């Protein structure tokens, strides 16, 4: 494939990926309202369209027609930039995430991924660490005490859990020997003893790493039980207290896009990505990997919502103690153990 075709193909993939991602974000919100509704013995959205399926559309229109208040004394450039930074960081991660194998469309063989990088995982970690700025600047520029506290809490929490997040990936890296997400998934092909799939989660101590990853990722995305930055009962929405209309919608989009990224990465790193039973006709064989991938991502999103409907919120000192005194030592111990097992086997 020459360079021109490559750029053209990736431009097309970018547009498709963005459309799919934004739709997925809208419907994750719908799913959350519906599932949490049922958990709390309510119906959730039912009025707009069948099962409330058009609710995201109605919400979007409403966000457009809402009055956008910009309080005086805010640092206006940063106040406007903060939601944009948050949403750009949240969306960019998707550009390195593979959703399936190579496919051939019209004689052109291309991977189901915008671009395959040798440092794919590093890029995702980097973008995640940039996401802190959206939150911190929103809190600081808003000129509100709640916002400042929320922004500070959020950034301190995000940086604290970033370490255990990074350490939990080491085991996967040892097993795959690469940062490329595609190679990490390829390393998980096959099975142990013919029936247990060779996913990383089933390998030695990786199940501990998986739970460390999931917990840190929940904290990283500021979701319950770690949603201290926006704790309604004490900080009234935290860093986005002073935001309204479309700017508020941007933070909302960023949060859900981050959830989707976390679910995708968890699937790729620990649950074997698009690997799953293949059967049937040739066309079905092409589609099934994507289906398995989306199914696993959906399960993760469902667990996210389930946890939200079930668990209460931490206290802030508990949250910090949990991150620094429990998750971090556990991640280091797990990493040493994994290293020892692999070193002894080789």
């Amino acid at each position, binding site marked *: 494939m020459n360079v021109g075709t490559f750029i053209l193909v990736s431009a097309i993939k970018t547009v498709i990926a963005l459309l799919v991602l934004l739709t997925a974000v809208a419907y994750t919100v719908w799913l959350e309202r519906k599932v949490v509704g049922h958990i709390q013995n309510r119906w959730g959205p039912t009025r707009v369209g069948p099962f409330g399926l058009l609710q995201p559309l109605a919400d979007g229109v409403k966000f457009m027609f809402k009055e956008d208040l910009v309080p005086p004394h805010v640092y206006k450039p940063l106040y406007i930039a903060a939601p944009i930074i948050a949403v750009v960081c949240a969306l960019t991660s998707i550009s390195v995430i593979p959703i399936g194998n190579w496919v051939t469309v019209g004689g052109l063989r291309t991977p189901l991924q915008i671009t395959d990088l040798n440092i794919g995982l590093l890029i995702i970690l980097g973008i995640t660490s940039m996401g802190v700025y959206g939150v911190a600047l929103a809190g600081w520029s808003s000129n509100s005490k709640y916002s400042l506290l929320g922004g500070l809490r959020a950034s301190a929490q995000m940086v604290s859990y970033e370490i255990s997040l990074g350490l939990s990936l080491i085991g996967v890296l040892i097993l795959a020997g690469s940062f490329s997400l595609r190679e990490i998934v390829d390393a998980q092909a096959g099975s142990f003893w013919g029936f247990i799939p060779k996913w990383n989660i089933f390998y030695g101590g990786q199940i501990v790493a998986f739970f460390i990853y999931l917990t840190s990722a929940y904290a990283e995305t500021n979701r319950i039980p770690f949603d201290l930055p926006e704790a309604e009962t004490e900080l009234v929405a935290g860093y986005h207290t002073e935001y309204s209309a479309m700017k508020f919608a941007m933070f909302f989009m960023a949060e859900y896009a981050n959830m989707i990224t976390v679910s995708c990465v968890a699937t790729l790193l620990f649950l074997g990505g698009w690997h799953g039973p293949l059967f049937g006709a040739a066309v079905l064989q092409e589609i099934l990997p994507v289906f398995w991938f989306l199914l696993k991502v959906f399960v993760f999103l469902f667990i996210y919502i389930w946890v939200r409907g079930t668990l209460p919120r931490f206290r802030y000192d508990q949250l910090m103690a949990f991150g620094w005194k429990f998750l971090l030592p556990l991640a280091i111990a797990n990493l040493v153990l994994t290293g020892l097992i692999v*070193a002894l086997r080789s």
Partner: protein
Amino acid sequence: MPQNYVPIFLFMAVIAVMIPLPLLLAKLVRPDNPSKSKLMPYECGIDPVDSARGRYTVRYYIVAILFVVFDVETIFLFPWAVKFKALGMFGFIEMLVFLGILIVGFIWIWGKGALEWV
């Protein structure tokens, strides 16, 4: 720029155009009639007292600096991990020494109470 990295810049260019679009579009259709009480910083209905950008506890600073140190440690582990199978037992012991020195520091700050939030 190596070929594979170009799509990321392309992607960012697309969202840099796409994201501000609804913000501008909404400007055309939304109502705009602010009033004094609407524009007040939200403080549960009470008039705000004092500057909002006050000073805050130094603990946030400790968390940030500890984060930088342990982030460097994590970064050092990355190239070690991807080449671990080739480095073998020797690499494992090497990393054990590295981690050991840092764990001593970690235990020390734990004992000093720098990890306590209250």
